[in-house]
């Protein structure tokens, strides 16, 4: 079906292309914006009018495209009918009555000479309620998808890492792409009916020597134009929520001789053996880190003999960590609290889960009944056998419609951490390495314990006890600027290594 659609109705959807097409197809001026209607019957443009930043379409042009009958009533109302169902529009009212149900519109319909103009949202909010096929209005790309077509929105960005670079291409909803290398470009063939490509396709400029640009080739194909310094690539894709994320790591030539003579690029050498062209692996998609400042509000945590409170210490360090990571890595850092307030334990993990954080780090200071206890410890969640089995057993057979059964994944939310334990331990090891250069560690720097805040975290998660407030010397150290800066630096180092070194680091 898809193949048939694809072959019958090749469509190219780029906003740049659309603008030109709109100019050719519409009776309006060439610069007039247009809405592209994309259906299994092909594509056509519907001219739009801009009034006070609101996009309007003319009812008389909309009607034939959707088999609508428009009738002007004597009292000024306009009725729009489709297969016995009726929409009533009233001048000066930003409302439509759709088969008896009121829906709001961003602006009232307006008359322009003999024509009625309606806001473009009239299609998605009113017509879609009575129309036979799904109508998917994508305002940003001025696209209306009619029927069950797979038209993923394609967005791309480029990041450079030293001399190498990474191209990240998201397809929403998910569509996989195969990547093949031809002489001077990479071809990305998407499994879709058409593409909805952002304009420009690559908002962040590439590295001139490595990639020259990203462009649309045809309805479902894009190409990455390669620069003279390109030596090899590794393409991997992974689903992230409703997105299929394709990451193409570009490797620069070892000897930069090619850069000296860009006019005659040598044929690209084979990719280095440690970066074989591969597909379908999980990759790092590291974007967001949740930092949990332990305790807060009425819950002071441990208090030192001199009155240093754990809750103040954790907040101060969390803020330092945030500014260092944001400034140096450009990652998004969420704090579970940014002031002195009480946050329930469940909310701390929920915040990280709801924001799809790639890593959860809970900051604490320790206490012991004995004053001499000292050193930092990193905790990874531990589960009793029954709990671990409940989730690691993973699937449960459930009967399916039409007979048979299938396995579904059932992990109770409060045991979400069970599937990330390996990566949590991997991060703990990296953090231990980074910390030990700056901070005294306890005799057993990595521990496993059933810690409440880690158990429902649905990402690699650790809790770090930075030292003992019950130990007077340690309490003094914990409160010092030098120590807090060291902790921020160590976390930064560990996060960089985790992002770069752990396969699938931080993936969902």
């Amino acid at each position: 079906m898809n193949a048939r659609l694809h072959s019958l109705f090749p469509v190219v959807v780029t906003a740049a292309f659309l603008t030109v097409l709109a100019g050719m197809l519409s009776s309006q001026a060439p610069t007039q914006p247009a809405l592209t209607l994309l259906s299994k019957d092909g594509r056509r443009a519907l001219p739009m009018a801009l009034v006070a930043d609101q996009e309007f379409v003319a009812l008389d042009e909309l009607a034939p495209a959707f088999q609508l009958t428009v009738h002007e009533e004597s009292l000024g109302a306009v009725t729009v009918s489709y297969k016995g169902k009726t929409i009533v529009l009233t001048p000066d009212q930003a409302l439509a009555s759709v088969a008896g149900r009121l829906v709001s519109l961003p602006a009232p319909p307006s008359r322009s000479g003999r024509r009625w103009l309606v806001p473009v949202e009239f299609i998605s909010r009113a017509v879609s309620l009575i129309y036979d096929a799904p109508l998917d209005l994508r305002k940003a790309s001025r696209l209306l998808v009619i029927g069950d077509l797979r038209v993923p929105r394609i967005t791309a960005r480029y990041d450079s890492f030293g001399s190498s670079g990474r191209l990240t291409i998201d397809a929403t909803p998910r569509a996989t792409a195969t990547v093949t290398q031809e002489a001077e470009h990479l071809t990305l063939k998407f499994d879709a009916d058409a593409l909805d490509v952002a304009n420009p396709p690559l908002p962040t400029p590439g590295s001139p020597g490595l990639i020259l640009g990203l462009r649309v080739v045809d309805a479902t194909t894009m190409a990455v134009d390669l620069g003279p310094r390109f030596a090899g690539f590794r393409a991997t894709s992974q689903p992230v929520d409703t997105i299929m994320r394709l990451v193409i790591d570009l490797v620069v030539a070892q000897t930069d001789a090619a850069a000296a003579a860009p006019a005659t690029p040598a044929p690209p050498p084979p990719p280095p053996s440690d970066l074989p062209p591969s597909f379908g692996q999980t990759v790092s998609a590291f974007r967001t880190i949740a930092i949990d400042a332990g305790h807060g509000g009425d819950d002071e945590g441990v208090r030192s003999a001199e009155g240093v409170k754990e809750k103040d210490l954790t907040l101060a360090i969390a803020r330092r960590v945030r500014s260092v990571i944001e400034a140096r890595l450009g990652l998004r850092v969420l704090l579970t609290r940014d002031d002195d307030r009480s946050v329930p334990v469940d909310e701390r993990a929920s915040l990280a889960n709801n924001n799809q954080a790639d890593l959860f780090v809970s900051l604490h200071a320790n206490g012991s009944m004995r004053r001499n206890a000292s050193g930092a410890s990193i905790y990874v969640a531990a589960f009793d056998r029954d709990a671990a089995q409940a989730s690691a057993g993973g699937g449960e057979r459930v009967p399916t419609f039409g007979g048979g059964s299938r396995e579904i994944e059932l992990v109770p939310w409060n045991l979400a951490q069970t599937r990330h334990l390996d990566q949590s331990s991997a991060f703990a090891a990296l953090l231990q390495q980074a910390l030990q250069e700056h901070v005294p560690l306890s005799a057993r720097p990595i521990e496993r314990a059933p810690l409440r805040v880690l158990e429902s975290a649905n990402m690699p998660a650790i809790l770090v006890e930075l030292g003992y407030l019950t130990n007077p010397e340690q309490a003094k150290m914990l409160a010092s600027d030098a120590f807090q800066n060291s902790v921020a630096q160590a976390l930064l180092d560990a996060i960089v290594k985790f992002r770069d070194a752990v396969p699938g680091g931080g993936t969902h």
Partner: protein
Amino acid sequence: MVRQLAIAGTAAAILVLAGAVFFATRGLPASGRRAAAAPTGAAAPAASAPTGRKIKARLFYVAEDGTRLTSLERDVAYGESADEQAREIVAAQIAPVVEPLVSAIPPGTTLRAVFITKSGEAYVDLSREARVAHPGGTVDELLTVYTIVNALTVNLPAVTVVQLLVDGKEVDTLSGHVDLRRPLAMNLTWVQ
């Protein structure tokens, strides 16, 4: 599922039986046996009951380095049933101690009740001091929790897991770290 329950039930029954045998082999019926029915307060250490029959039980205290528990064998009053014995052990465990011993139980904590289910879950209900007087810190909380959990699971084969309650109610944690929503099994990682 039903089959698993049946197996678990049978296993628990065997454990209870084993526990009973364990105690039965530990000595003769005592005259002047200590009345064990009433919860024993922390102020009345069971280990010092002069006239009662005793058993040896392994109790847990904070080790020298402050980050682990250490265990030592102490006399604990004999209890006729598993419930009573559990009560005696916990009462002895939470009783105040003098240097050089250090207890991981918050000061003022008393025992409200102990009971053991047929499936080997011990419910230990501590007074509110276990929470409100807790000094905080992950290590302190782990040591408090595993002092009680290990004292019961190590000494009573009938007990497989321990559910801590505070003031008669389930609690999330004592001081914000250790998950107490589920019963916990013996864990000797926290013992030197």
